[in-house]
């Protein structure tokens, strides 16, 4: 029983990390129909710069981590907005070119990161409490999972509040449903595109810093490997559905943890789950978007 509780909570923690990356992907696809293969680069860059600033403030301290997280959010938002303005804006409704450009950008930035920080992972220090465990019902839960879960819940609430309570949130919700009609109401939907990219990048940036805490290291390939899971989560949740991404992130991570523990086949289980969802429910758990 204790193993089940441990796997469940650690699974939810990992799912929180997946959600931070997948939420942006899902929002971006939902509004713009863009499959952004460069999304992992926002995460990696934020992870590196968050670590660089954080260790200068206080290596292994809470202040360093919190400032690193803030830097990750800003770097993620800025790099994503810049990507939208410079590359994606010229390529709306040109899906092949979007894929080519974002894949190319993803590959080029990994090479750039390797050139700057090397190809080997860099071990990082985190606040002591995060390396310890908290006992719940006789089970020792790693504390970094609580940080991940808390951050993901906060991000989910903030995005939902933004979507429900602001005028740009209204435009984005309408645009996910019918982008053409939003334009036909006299709204420059391109501003909403940039904002959505920035929000997605900010979440991925936070995810980048927290991923380095979770793995205890930061590397040039961190974003690429997490991006694969994020895409799987996005497809299972339903392209364009934020709540779908949240639910799917938890399902994928929990199944992955259980399959790893009992069969040593976590990745296989995730791919099988993806195949089943695509066959049985091609639009995903909560997907409605058609582009």
């Amino acid at each position, binding site marked *: 029983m204790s193993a089940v509780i441990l796997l469940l909570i650690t699974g939810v923690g990992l799912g929180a990390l997946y959600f931070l990356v997948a939420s942006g992907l899902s929002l971006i696809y939902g509004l713009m129909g863009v499959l952004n293969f460069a999304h992992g680069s926002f995460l990696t860059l934020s992870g590196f710069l968050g670590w660089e600033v954080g260790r200068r403030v206080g290596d292994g301290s809470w202040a360093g981590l919190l400032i690193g997280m803030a830097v990750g959010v800003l770097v993620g938002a800025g790099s994503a907005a810049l990507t939208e303005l410079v590359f994606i804006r010229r390529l709306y409704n040109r899906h092949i070119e979007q894929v080519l450009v974002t894949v190319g950008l993803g590959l080029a930035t990994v090479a750039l990161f390797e050139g700057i920080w090397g190809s080997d992972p860099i071990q990082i220090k985190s606040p002591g409490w995060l390396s310890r465990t908290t006992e719940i019902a006789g089970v020792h839960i790693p504390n970094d999972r609580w940080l991940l879960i808390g951050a993901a819940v906060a991000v989910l609430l903030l995005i939902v509040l933004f979507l429900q309570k602001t005028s740009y949130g209204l435009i984005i919700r309408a645009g996910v449903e019918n982008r*053409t009609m939003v334009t036909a*109401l006299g*709204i420059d939907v391109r501003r909403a595109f940039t904002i959505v990219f920035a929000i997605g990048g900010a979440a991925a940036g936070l995810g980048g810093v927290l991923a380095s805490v979770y793995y205890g290291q930061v590397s040039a390939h961190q974003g690429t490997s997490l991006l694969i899971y994020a895409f799987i989560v996005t497809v299972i949740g339903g392209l364009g559905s934020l709540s779908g991404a949240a639910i799917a992130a938890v399902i994928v991570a929990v199944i992955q943890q259980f399959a790893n523990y009992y069969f040593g086949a976590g990745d296989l289980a995730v791919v099988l789950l993806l195949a089943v969802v695509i066959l049985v429910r091609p639009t995903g758990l909560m997907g409605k978007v058609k582009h």
Partner: protein
Amino acid sequence: MTPILTVQDLNVRIAGQQVVEDVSFDVAAHGVTALLGRNGVGKSSTLKGLLGLYERSGEVTFDGTRIDKLMTHRVVQQGIAYVPEDREVFSQLTVAENLRLAERGGAPQRALVDELFPELRQRANQQAGTLSGGQQQMVSLSRALMNDNQLILVDEPTKGLAPLIVGTVTEALKKAAEITPMLLVEQNLQVVRDLAHTVVVLSGGRVVHTGPADEFLDSDLVQRHLGVSSDGKAAEGLDEEPAEKADGPASSTEAKEDDT
């Protein structure tokens, strides 16, 4: 009176295929101008071309300003509202949110919308996707009436509606047209008769007739160009064998029809 909209040699393409060819017509600065034609002749594509929703070329002048190079949101911001075919309300948003989204500037015309469609106020918090077709059309029309526009493009507003609702929508359009001129695409000829003072008839992607609405609707040009009798009923064999061209009204212009 100077027309509010002048369309000169408009061409519209969808995915590279030409669907509207060298269309020219004016929209009067008052009342309703109807754009008529059989199914698939390019009426809706013309409206979408004017808005820039489809690739277009040619000259479109609105209230003295060229708008044919403007992006869609800029065209609308000039003062042109659009009521699309099939309503296209945002089904996941509430009625109030649909209307709020349409507001431009600081003075939305809430009072007019409330007067025309009081029912919508009671349904403000209802998801638009759960409304009936007629209610959705009210939302769609209200979105166009929220702002102080100089022209409204309306695409088949009575399509698929129950006869009772058609009457309500027609009355609303009539009141709206007293304030704002309208370019109306409509298959229901009774609605056209009730609303329009002028008709522009398309066939094969081109304008084949322009003139007063009553005269057109009372002539056998209706059969020739629309394939229906003037009461709106389908006429047999007209698609294959157009009737001999009749003389149009003195003030009308009749172009040679190209059946391509």
